């Protein structure tokens, strides 16, 4: 469904992502792991079109995305939930959701069904629907960020650190919702610091180090890999 080959992104002279190739099959959930500054966020931003590629190609369902604007990628179903949620503070919860359905509005399609679906899926948002974005708690903001992505009717969902800054119980809840989205057949690529949470959700994972893929494999295998355990799970095998 999503295929990156030899992707390189540079900020000035610094190579943030260097020759990364990875694939995510249709309906699959894949985790992207790595330390801070390994290039995970940059990779997601490259996929959604927020940063330009120096080299390499991105294809989605066989179509090359080169030269396709960010909002056009969204319309094709490639939807990015950015890091730190980035809620529109001056808009209400409902307006945050409605504004994310831009594509469908342009085609004159009603969005009421989408709204109802999102509220049914994330009931906390329904309770908060007329509250301004800035007044939500961190967990609610993350739910809203996910709800906003759902409004765009995603085929491929890119999630950047969905558990960042959340209490463990809330993070579990968020990942529970992500699993439910994946179960509906949405392809998911998730960047996450919480390695256990990410690998228990994803079928496969890639480990990014200094902008390159250092390791890849099935989640279970990665969880047992001594290098992963040492680097991301706090020490040697139990």
């Amino acid at each position, binding site marked *: 469904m999503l295929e990156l080959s030899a992707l390189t992104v540079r900020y000035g002279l610094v190579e943030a992502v260097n020759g990364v190739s990875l694939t995510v099959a249709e309906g699959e959930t894949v985790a992207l792991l790595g330390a801070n500054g390994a290039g995970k966020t940059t990779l997601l931003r490259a996929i959604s079109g927020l940063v330009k590629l120096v080299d390499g190609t991105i294809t989605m369902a066989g179509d090359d995305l080169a030269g396709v604007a960010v*909002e056009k990628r969204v319309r094709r179903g490639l*939807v990015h939930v950015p890091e730190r949620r*980035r809620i*529109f503070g001056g*808009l209400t919860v409902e307006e945050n959701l*409605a*504004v994310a359905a831009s594509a469908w509005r342009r085609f004159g399609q009603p969005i009421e069904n989408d709204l109802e679906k999102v509220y049914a899926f994330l009931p906390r948002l329904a309770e908060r629907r007329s509250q301004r*974005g800035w007044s939500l708690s961190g967990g609610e903001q993350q739910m809203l960020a996910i709800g906003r992505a759902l409004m765009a009717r995603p085929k491929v969902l890119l999630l950047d650190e969905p558990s960042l800054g959340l209490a463990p119980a809330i993070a579990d809840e968020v990942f529970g919702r992500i699993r439910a989205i994946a179960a509906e057949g949405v392809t998911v690529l998730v960047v996450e610091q919480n390695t256990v949470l990410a690998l228990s959700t994803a079928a496969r994972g890639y480990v990014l180090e200094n902008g390159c893929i250092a390791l890849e494999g099935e989640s279970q295998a990665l969880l047992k890999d001594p290098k992963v355990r040492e680097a991301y799970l706090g020490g040697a095998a139990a």
Partner: protein
Amino acid sequence: MTRRGTWILLIGVGVLALAAGLILEGYSLRVLTLGLIAALALLGLNLIFGYCGLIHLGQAGFVGIGAYTSAILTTKAGWPMVVSIPTAVAVTALAAGLISVPLLRLKGHYLALATVGVNVVLELVAKNWVELTNGYNGIAGIPRLAEAVSDSTPERTFLFIATVTLLLGIGLSARLRDSHLGRAMIAVRDDETAAMVAGVNVVRVRVTAFVLGAVFAAVSGVLFAHYTGFISPTDFGVPISILYLVMIIVGGEASIGGVVAGAVIMTFLPELLRDAAERLVAIGLSDGGLIVRLLDEGYLAVYGLITLLVLVFMPKGLAGLIHRLSTKAEAT
């Protein structure tokens, strides 16, 4: 804004403006009318700056394009106002659209500086293209809208015209705020990246906001020209653009009611200050020294002080203050 809130605002502004129009006479009536005209330009700036977050220090330039276009068409080409006014609005919108393409590639303070540049260039054109604009002398003898409607009470007639136009502008602004476009503008202001990944075409939204804002400016400009009957380049210079931004900050950005209140209050301020200065002299507290001169001629300094105080003590302006007081009243 809720639909009820919009109606309250429309009725409130309409009743206040018309009542004041009946009570006020002469010069005060004129100042009120000018305040309402300024409020229209501010509603436009509110779309650009309040909703879309673009710092625009050239709004007076677009008021000027509207005013000059209609003035030139009526005085030099002999067009009737019914044709010249819509033409002026269209010309302003077109100019804003063309300028916005290179302009809106810039962000933040670079954009702010570039908008100042646009305003300066427009002012220079108005001052130096003498055959068309009469340069520094300005254009006199512009046909007056009120006299075309009724000659017995032109001042009151025009106040009525300005009030109705302003009410239309308020209604349109409120509708826009609750439309998809309005939400997209605020989304772009709050977080450009998040707006992009939410599928919003950021460039298109910015250009639309800028052009719509210029349309409001043009309407304000043609009203000004056909009310005063005389325009000159200094009516539309950078200082006026800065005053507009001050009025928005004092009134409360992104609040329609605040913006209208800001426009009227700040238009009246120099008159109030002049009054105060005269009174100080009359009761013998001052012999016309520094304080009186400051109040009388240095009203820009007082504007600056007010802006500073508002920014420090009530960053959301008058609208924010009223909101705070009303929620406090509900709580007790």
